[in-house]
C-alpha cells in the first residue's frame, strides 16, 4: 500500500507495524508529528500500546528502560536537546542490553536556538552503546524502523534511527507501507530470556565491581560486533520479503571512480544527483552512503573505498577541536589498508544548523578535492568549511 507521508509519520508507521507495546515520549520540534501520529494510532486502537506521556526525555528513556526490562517492545523519539538530556539513560539502556528503538530527528544543538538539522545531537551519543542508522528517504525510515526492532531484539542492544529535521521529517514522499501480516511474520512478538518477572525474581543492574565490569563491557562490544552481521542479515531478509534493501554502506556508481563522495542522511539524495550529472559528463565520480554508523562497518567501508585515490567526506557535523566525525571514523577505518590502496581522505564540513546543501555545494567539494589531488601536496588534515563566509 502506497501512502504519501512525511518522514515523521513514516517513523510512526514503522512503530505501528512493529507493534510496539510501550511508547514513552516527550514532544520536541522537529519530532512532534511522530508522537502525535502515534497518539492518534493508540487512541484509535490501530496500535495497541501504552503511550506514557512523560514529563521529560530523561523520563521517556527511563520509562522505556522500565518497560523493556519487563519484556515490552518499546519505542521513543526525540531530537537534539532532548537526546542530550537522555544521555545518562542512553548508557543505561545499552548497558542493560535493552532492545529499545528510538527515532532521533537530527537537529542541531543550541545555542543559539535552532530547530534545523545537523548530526551533532546523535553523533555526540556515539559512545553510549546504541546502534545508529542514518536514513535518506521516508521509505528507508519506515523500513529501518521495523528492521531496528528485529536487530535490537536479536543482539539485545538499543537502536537509534536517525533522520534529518525537516528535509525528511516534514517532507512528504510516497511510501510503500508493507502488509501488517507480512511484517508480523518478519517480526514476531518479542521473546526475552531475562525480564522482571515475579515468578523468577532477579535483580537487574546491581553493583558491578571491577572483577566483572570489564567482562560485561566486553560482552556489549561483542554484541556490537555481532550486530554488524545481524544488520546485514535482517536487511537481506527484508529484501527477500519486501524487495528493498539498504546495506550498512551503499556504493553508488563507484565503478572505476577516481573520487568518491562519502555522505549520510538526505545529502545522499543530492549527492546521487550530482554524481549522475558528473558521470554523464564522463567524470569518474562515485558515491558511498554511510547508513550504519554504530557499530561502525569498517570492513564494508574498506571494501567500498579501497583503491579509490581520493575520497571526499561531507560531514553535517563537527567534533569541535578535531574534525568532521564521519571523516575521522573513515580515516581510522582505512588506516590499516596497504598504502597503495589507501585513499586520500578530504574532509568537508557542510550544512550545519540546517543550512541547505545544494548540488553546487557538493560540486564545490568535488572541485576542491580534485584541485587538492592535482596539487600533489599531502592531503590537508583540516576540513574545509563549505559555503561559510570568509
Amino acid at each position, binding site marked *: 500500500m502506497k501512502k504519501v507521508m512525511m518522514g515523521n509519520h513514516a517513523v510512526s508507521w514503522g512503530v505501528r507495524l512493529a507493534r510496539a*507495546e*510501550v511508547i*514513552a515520549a516527550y514532544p520536541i520540534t522537529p519530532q512532534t508529528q511522530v508522537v502525535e501520529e502515534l497518539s492518534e494510532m493508540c487512541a484509535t486502537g490501530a496500535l*495497541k*500500546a*501504552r503511550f*506514557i*506521556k*512523560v*514529563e*521529560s526525555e*530523561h*523520563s*521517556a528513556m*527511563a*520509562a*522505556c*528502560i*522500565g*518497560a*523493556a*526490562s*519487563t*519484556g*515490552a517492545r*518499546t519505542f521513543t523519539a526525540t531530537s537534539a536537546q532532548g537526546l542530550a538530556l537522555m544521555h*545518562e*539513560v542512553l548508557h*543505561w539502556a545499552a548497558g542493560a542490553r535493552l532492545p529499545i528503538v528510538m527515532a532521533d530527528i537530527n537537529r542541531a544543538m543550541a545555542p543559539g536556538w535552532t530547530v534545523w538539522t545537523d548530526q551533532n545531537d546523535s553523533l555526540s551519543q556515539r559512545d553510549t552503546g546504541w546502534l545508529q542508522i542514518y536514513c535518506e528517504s521516508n521509505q528507508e525510515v519506515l523500513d529501518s524502523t521495523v528492521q531496528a526492532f528485529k536487530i535490537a531484539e536479536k543482539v539485545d542492544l538499543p537502536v537509534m534511527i536517525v533522520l534529518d529535521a525537516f528535509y525528511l521529517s516534514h517532507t512528504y514522499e510516497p511510501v510503500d507501507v508493507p502488509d501488517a501480516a507480512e511484517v508480523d511474520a518478519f517480526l514476531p512478538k518479542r521473546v526475552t530470556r531475562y525480564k*522482571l*518477572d*515475579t515468578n*523468577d*525474581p*532477579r*535483580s*537487574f*543492574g*546491581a*553493583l*558491578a*565491581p571491577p572483577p*566483572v565490569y570489564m567482562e560485561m563491557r566486553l560482552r556489549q562490544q561483542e554484541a556490537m560486533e555481532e550486530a554488524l552481521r545481524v544488520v546485514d542479515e535482517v536487511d537481506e531478509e527484508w529484501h527477500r520479503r519486501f524487495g528493498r534493501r539498504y546495506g550498512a554502506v551503499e556504493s553508488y556508481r563507484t565503478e572505476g571512480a577516481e573520487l568518491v563522495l562519502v555522505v549520510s542522511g538526505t545529502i545522499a539524495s543530492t549527492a546521487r544527483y550530482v554524481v549522475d550529472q558528473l558521470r554523464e559528463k564522463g567524470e569518474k565520480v562515485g558515491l558511498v552512503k554511510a547508513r550504519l554508523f554504530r557499530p561502525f562497518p569498517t570492513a564494508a567501508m574498506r571494501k567500498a573505498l579501497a583503491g579509490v585515490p581520493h575520497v571526499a567526506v561531507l560531514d553535517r557535523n563537527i567534533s569541535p577541536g578535531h574534525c568532521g566525525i564521519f571523516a575521522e571514523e573513515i580515516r581510522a577505518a582505512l588506516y590499516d589498508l596497504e598504502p597503495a590502496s589507501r585513499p586520500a581522505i578530504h574532509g568537508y564540513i557542510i550544512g550545519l544548523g540546517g543550512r541547505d546543501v545544494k548540488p553546487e555545494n557538493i560540486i564545490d567539494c568535488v572541485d576542491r578535492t580534485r584541485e587538492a589531488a592535482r596539487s600533489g601536496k599531502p592531503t590537508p588534515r583540516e576540513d574545509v568549511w563549505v559555503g561559510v563566509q570568509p
Partner: protein
Amino acid sequence: MSQIVIKDKIPREELMASGHVACPGCGGTLAMRLVLKGLGPKTIVTLPACCWTIISGPFPQTALGVPLLHTAFETAAAAASGIRAALDMQGDKDTTVLGWAGDGGTFDIGLQALSGAAERNEDILYVCYDNEAYMNTGIQRSSATPWGAWTTTTPVGTPKSHPKKDLIAILAAHRIPYAATATVADPVDLIGKVQKAKAIRGTKFVHILAPCPPGWKTSDEETIELARMAVRTRVFPLYEVENGQRWRFTAEHPGDPVEPYIRKQGRFRHLTPEQIRHIQAEVDARWELLKRRVEFSA
C-alpha cells in the same frame, strides 16, 4: 490488653534476605523488609541510586525475593511507570510496581519524574525512605535534611538553614488517591498503609522516616526509638491524605518536647538552646498547619 501485641498483624513471609550490606541498625532496610511484607511476592521494585543500591548486594546477588530493577538516580517514578505500562500490556493488573527511593532521589533529583508520574496518576506505589540526607555518598544535605542539622556540606559553622521540604503537601497537591507518612517504629501502621495503597489504583506515595545511625550520629540500637520519638514530638507526624483532600491522623501525637529527640542525635550536637527552641517553634507551627488541614477535611 496491656502490651500492644503486633505479631499477628505482621505478615510472616520474608521477602528480604539476610546478608544484605546495610549498616547496623539501618532504618531504611527495616522499612524495605516491612513494606515487602505488606505487599507480598507479586511486587516489582525499581530503585534509583540510593543506599539500597548497595544494600541489595553486588552482582550476582540480590537481597530481595521479588524482581528488582536498578535505575538511574532521578528515574524511579519514570522507570516504575514503564514497568507498569509493560505489565498492563501483559494484562497483569495484580502485580504492584514499587518505586523505592531515598530522600535525595525523591525530594531532589527525582522530584520531577515523581511529579510527572503523580500527575499522570500512574498505577504505582512510590515509597521514599527518608534518612534526611545523601547518606550513601557520605552525609550531604538534601532538601529533606532538617533545619540546623550538620552534614558534610552543611558543616557546624553553617548548619542547614532551611527547613525540610513538605513533600506530602506537594504530592497531595497532585490530588493522587493516596499519600501517607509512616515510620519503622510502627510496623502495623506502616504495613497497613502499604496494604491500603496496594488496593488503590493510581499513584500512591508513602513517606517513611528511616533513621540512619551513621548519618544522624546516633547509636545503632536507637533507630526505632528515634522514629518513635519523631512521631511523639510531632517532628514527623503520622497521617494520610486521600485524593489530596481528606487529611487524617493515624497515630497519637502527644507532643513531647523536641529537645530530647534532638539531643539524642550527634548531627544536632552543636545546637544552642535557643536554636532548639527555634526547631520547637517550627515543629509547632507545622503541626498547627497540619492539624488545620485535618480538621478542615474532617
